């Protein structure tokens, strides 16, 4: 059993390397990854009298969220169109292996791009109070949001525009619900309830703790980490089940 799992993991890494070469190592994707957080930062900062460490925390959460969910949703529809999915379906890899491969590439991309807001923060004199927690938070959030992207990609279509529209419809409202713009403390009770069902809330809250120090966070650190793990498990299980259903419809 263990050698089989190891074998499938090696194949997942092969799929991840393929994804990185085909979908991530592209000029527009990298430019999007670097520029979009920078523009978001400027949009946040200009004309608002908010502390920089507050802005950086929200920006980092949002950056991981957008980058980790940016490419994963389009891989399955693209490969349906190019018939490459049939190639993977004929190979000795399970659907879970394919999805883990797609997720690993996305995690790596999300983690690398998250360095941009951190470096921006350093440039503006924002220090990291809890670097270890921040590292754990970034990795966990990148996994969680990449798995969320896999749920979006399960739509049985070969049209990437359909998937992108659907994911944007879900992603943008989440940004406004998750304490990115307004601290959770300041939200009304119904706003806090809504914020609790968004995974973005927990990474943003962790970032606040890491950049602004204890007291800036609304939930405790273990609670935030636990919530992200729960969302990761929910998204991954849902992605596997949904892809198992949608894969035959794609082929």
């Amino acid at each position, binding site marked *: 059993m263990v050698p*089989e799992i190891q*074998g*499938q993991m*090696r*194949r997942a*890494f*092969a*799929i991840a*390397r*393929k994804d990185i*070469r*085909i979908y991530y190592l592209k000029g527009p994707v990298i430019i999007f990854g670097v520029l979009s957080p920078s523009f978001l930062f400027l949009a946040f900062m200009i004309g608002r009298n908010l502390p920089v460490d507050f802005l950086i925390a929200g920006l980092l959460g949002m950056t991981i969220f957008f980058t980790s969910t940016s490419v994963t949703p389009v891989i399955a529809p693209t490969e349906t169109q*190019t*018939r*490459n999915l*049939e*190639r*993977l*379906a*004929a*190979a*000795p*890899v*399970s659907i879970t292996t394919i999805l883990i491969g797609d997720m690993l590439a996305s995690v790596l991309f999300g983690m690398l791009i998250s360095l941009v807001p951190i470096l921006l923060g350093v440039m503006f004199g924002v220090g990291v109070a809890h670097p270890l927690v921040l590292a754990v938070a970034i990795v966990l959030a990148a996994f969680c949001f990449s798995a969320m992207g896999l749920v979006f990609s399960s739509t049985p279509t070969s049209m990437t525009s359909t998937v992108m529209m659907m994911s944007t419809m879900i992603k943008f409202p989440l940004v406004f619900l998750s304490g990115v713009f307004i601290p959770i403390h300041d939200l009304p009770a119904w706003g806090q309830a809504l914020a609790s069902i968004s995974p973005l809330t927990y990474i943003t809250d962790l970032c606040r703790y890491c950049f602004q120090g204890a007291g800036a966070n609304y939930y405790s650190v273990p609670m935030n980490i636990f919530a992200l793990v729960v969302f990761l498990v929910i998204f991954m299980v849902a992605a596997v089940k949904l892809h198992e259903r949608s894969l*035959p419809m794609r*082929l």
Partner: protein
Amino acid sequence: MKNVTNMIVAEGLTKNYGELVAVDHIDLKVAGGEIFGFLGPNGAGKTTTVRMLTGIIRPTQGRIHIAGFDLLRDPIKAKEVMGVVPELSNAYTELSAWKNLQLMAELYGVPAKTAKARAEELLVRFGLHDRKDHKTKTFSKGMKQRLVIAMSLMSDPEILFLDEPTSGLDVMSARMIKDVLQELNNRGKTIFLTTHYMEEANQLCNRVAIINHGKIAAISPPEELKARIGGLGRLEVSFKSHVDSSDLRSISGVTDVRESGDKTYLYTDEPGTTIQHLVDYCRAGSIKIVTLNTLTPTLEDVFIKLTGNGRGMEEVAEVVTNGS
């Protein structure tokens, strides 16, 4: 790999798409080292069958064993022993030929050192070595197809499934692919070949199956199939002057007459006797024969007889099928 006689076994294989029965309870057994041809008109269920046999889609009913492994229960092990060339070539166009081959090696768990040596060998064999670092989107159709076949061979599979591998290719690429298939078969590999080209099936296959309306209409070696089908002996005759085909139908032993260009085809079950009657007929009418040839039934004739004009399934009962 398990020690089995039949490398591919399908029992009661069925695929429904809603109300449509695409494949209807078919049974197949392909022996080790055999080249098995799978023929049928468009929409007959060929590609659906191949997709089920390669584990790409799940059958609605039925069982599949690949090299002794139950494909539905143990798909990873079953897929590890097979190479697949799908209907449409599907190498990753953004990757080079080399990277595509290495990806396949990784997906099939081939050790890196073996993978490199095998990729070099295959690139040379398929005439792609000088383009190995070029992205495959710059390749011609023939080159892409050769690469896809090379990709399917990266794991040195015991069983190779090919769905229309030479469709639409130039003569040189098609010939190269046929030569490779023959070489592989000589090395004991089992090949399941779906093709529209009757001559290709006739030349390469030890046995062929003809599928029509999702059911197997016949399974036999090509020559046996031609002999068993009967009634397809033909005389190809060219007359000096035009002869009315309705007159030719009256010749004893002639079952059908068709004209094509300057040739007339007389269908008969007894070519020898019919030749005598034809010569007598011409002598009596002072008709000069320019050429006269006896043609044996071709696989295409068998195919047309079994699948053409919607009569295919009526013929099924007449054909002795041999599924083992």
